[in-house]
Structure formats: structure tokens, C-alpha cells
């Protein structure tokens, strides 16, 4: 019994492979339907602005003679002969944009050409391919290397909102009131001589 030749040993039954677990029934996940958007040659920034909604777009084939007043963000890739005003919003001049007139907005981003002043209450950004002939008056400015600017650059910080005064308590003597402390920081408001 113990000297049986191996080949005479009955082949050991091969254990069947364990049955594969039944596929888990997957509940289809309903993904929000993505809005199909046409392929665009607009810069990525342009699409980001659009995805936030509320951006008016002036395409590169559009020419406007006259002033523009906007109460939403504005993307200009066309030709505007006139002033552009979006006091509470952002104005982007695209790489094909050409504006001949001032731009006044909360934020101004310039990729294209502007002949006119920039008044940006919060921020002005001049990209490397931009060409600006005009003054810039803004609380902040960012200039990329290569940007062409011919004009005066002036930083004007917004004035801080005055805090509510507490009710007056009269304890001071009738003598002269103490003088206000002198400011040690320069007041960056335009060229003052």
C-alpha cells in the first residue's frame, strides 16, 4: 500500500475553483447631465468666467461704435470705439480685442490692445501680449513681463470704511483737544506737489 507507484495513485481530484462571487448589482449612478457646450477658441479664463454665469461676450467679429455700460462681467474680443464701463464687474479684453476708449471697472484684465485709460477699483492685470497706451489707476496692478505699457501707473488704495462712532461721553475739559497723530505713511493719491 505504501509502495504504490505514484503513477498508480489515483489522481487527486482537483478542487473546483471557488465559485466567483456573483456580480454585485450596481445601482446606476445618475450623474448630473452635463450641459453640452460647443468647442470654443476662447481662452480658458473666458470659459471659467462663463461657467460662473453672467458674462456678456463681444466676439472678435463684432465692432461697436459707442459707449458700453454693463452690469455684468464683460469679455471683449472685438473692436470697440468708445468707453467701457462696468463699475461693479470685471472686464476682460481678449487677445483679439481692440478698445479705443477708457475702461472703468472693478477689475480689468488686458490681453489685447487698449488705447485709453484704465480705471480699476480693485485690480488691473496687464498680460504679456497686451499693448496699452493710456494711464492705469487702480488699487492693485499686475504686469506680466513683455507687456507694453505707455502711460502713467498710479496706485490708489480704496479709503477704509469709517467705523461707527460710539455715543459721545463728555469728560474732556474745555481746554484744547489733543491733536490727531500725524500719519507716517504716504498718501498715494495722484501726483501731489
Amino acid at each position, binding site marked *: 500500500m505504501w509502495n504504490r507507484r505514484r503513477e498508480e495513485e489515483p489522481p487527486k481530484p482537483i478542487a473546483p475553483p471557488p465559485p466567483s462571487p456573483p456580480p454585485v448589482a450596481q445601482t446606476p449612478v445618475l450623474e448630473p447631465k452635463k450641459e453640452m457646450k460647443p468647442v470654443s477658441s476662447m481662452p480658458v479664463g473666458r470659459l471659467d468666467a462663463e461657467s460662473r454665469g453672467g458674462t456678456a461676450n463681444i466676439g472678435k467679429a463684432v465692432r461697436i461704435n459707442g459707449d458700453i455700460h454693463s452690469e455684468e462681467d464683460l469679455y471683449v474680443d472685438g473692436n470697440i470705439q468708445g468707453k467701457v464701463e462696468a463699475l461693479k464687474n470685471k472686464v476682460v479684453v481678449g487677445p483679439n480685442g481692440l478698445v479705443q476708449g477708457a475702461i472703468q471697472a472693478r477689475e480689468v484684465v488686458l490681453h489685447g490692445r487698449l488705447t485709453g485709460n484704465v480705471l480699476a477699483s480693485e485690480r488691473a492685470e*496687464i498680460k504679456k501680449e497686451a499693448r496699452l497706451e493710456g494711464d492705469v489707476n487702480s488699487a492693485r*496692478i*499686475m*504686469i*506680466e*513681463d513683455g*507687456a*507694453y*505699457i*505707455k*502711460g*502713467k*501707473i*498710479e*496706485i490708489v488704495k480704496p479709503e477704509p470704511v469709517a467705523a461707527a462712532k460710539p455715543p459721545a461721553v463728555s469728560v474732556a475739559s474745555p481746554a484744547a483737544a489733543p491733536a490727531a497723530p500725524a500719519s507716517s505713511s*504716504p*498718501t*498715494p*493719491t*495722484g*501726483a*501731489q*506737489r
Partner: protein
Amino acid sequence: MQLPGPLKGIFGGRSVTPGAASPAPSQPLRTHAAPRRGEDSVLTRPSRGLEEFFAYIRGQYGLTLLELGGATQQNVSFITNLGHSLYSLDFLQVLNETFGDDKVDQSNPGRIEYFLRQTLDHPDGHFDGVLIWDVLGYLEPPLLTAVVERLRRVVRPKSYLLAFFHSDDKLQPVPVYTFRIQTVSELQLVQRGTRVPAALFNNRGVERLFGGFDSVKFFLTKERLREVIVKT
């Protein structure tokens, strides 16, 4: 034994105290930063001329300075943080656009006047100082004379101009720099190619060039740049 990551220096090696200030330079600082894309080389060095220029305007606010090297973030931030405004102009770019490679055209009075209208069309005494950098060295004599005279008019009296001239002894291609202000006494020079100057200038030549001004002061640098402070 060197351990990787944050344990690297635990058994020795150099330790760096975070936030430690770099030692004050006791000799001229010259660092070669990695050039940005498209730039040839970058170096930072002290500038006596720049130091003098800012010393003269120290304590004043709300000045309007003219810069002829083109707008850079550093220079705009530096000047505006001092409380001044900066009129920026890329003088060499306008020069190229107006004259191209035609040096003979720089003698044409009509073209000279057109160029002045494109670059220095300002009321008399409009600016409180000018950072000329090295642009004057690339102007042919007739244009150079006209530009210097126009600069004298558009800057108010008792103001200062800072100009750089290459001090080579022969006409050969020299580096064209973008000058970025690092501190009141330190400049970063970013080379953007080379260009042959229009003329050679020694101290006597510079004095003759600014003969209509009040005074001229010279500083020579290791990059063979002659720094000149001119008072109107």
C-alpha cells in the same frame, strides 16, 4: 548616515534656521539667478547711481517719475510703494518701431520730431525724475541730442536723471539689459540679447552730452557700465 526626507539632518549635516536673514553683504553682491524663459542671464548687483537717485527724492511723496526701460512689475511696485506714480515707456521698442535698422533715418528732422511725439510729448517740467537706464547709448547723435534736450524740458528743475552708458573702448555688441529695482541701492540686470551702441562715450563725452544740465556725477560698475546722475 543620511536619512531621507525630514530625518535627513538628524545625525548631522547642515542645518538651516528657518527665517534666518541672509548676511548683509560686505562686498558687492553678485548672484546669478536662474534665467526665466526667453532671458539670457540675470544678475543682481549694488548700484551707486540708483542709491544716489533715491537719496535725492527721499522724503518726498507723490512724485511722477518717468522710466524709459518699459514697465516691469518690480519697478512699478517699488516706485508706487514709495508713494509715487510712474510713467512707463518702452523707449527701445518705440525706437525699433519708428526707425527699424535704419540709422540714417535717425538724422531726419521729421522722423526725429515724430519719434519725440511718440515718446516724450509732455508739458515742460512734467516729471520729477527720470530713470533712463541704458537706452540713450543706442541713439544716433542727431536723435540723441534731440532726446536729451527734450528730457531737459520735460523734467522740472532741480530734478535728477539716472542714465547708464557702456564704457567699452570700441563699438561692439553689448548686452541690452532690463533693469529691475530690487532695493534703493540694488539692481537686477536681465540681459535680453545684444546690440551695438550708436557711439562710444567717455566721461568727457557724457559731460558734453548733458552740457545743458546743472551737474553730472559718474559711477563706474564692474559690468563696464558708466552710471551717470544728472541734475537739471
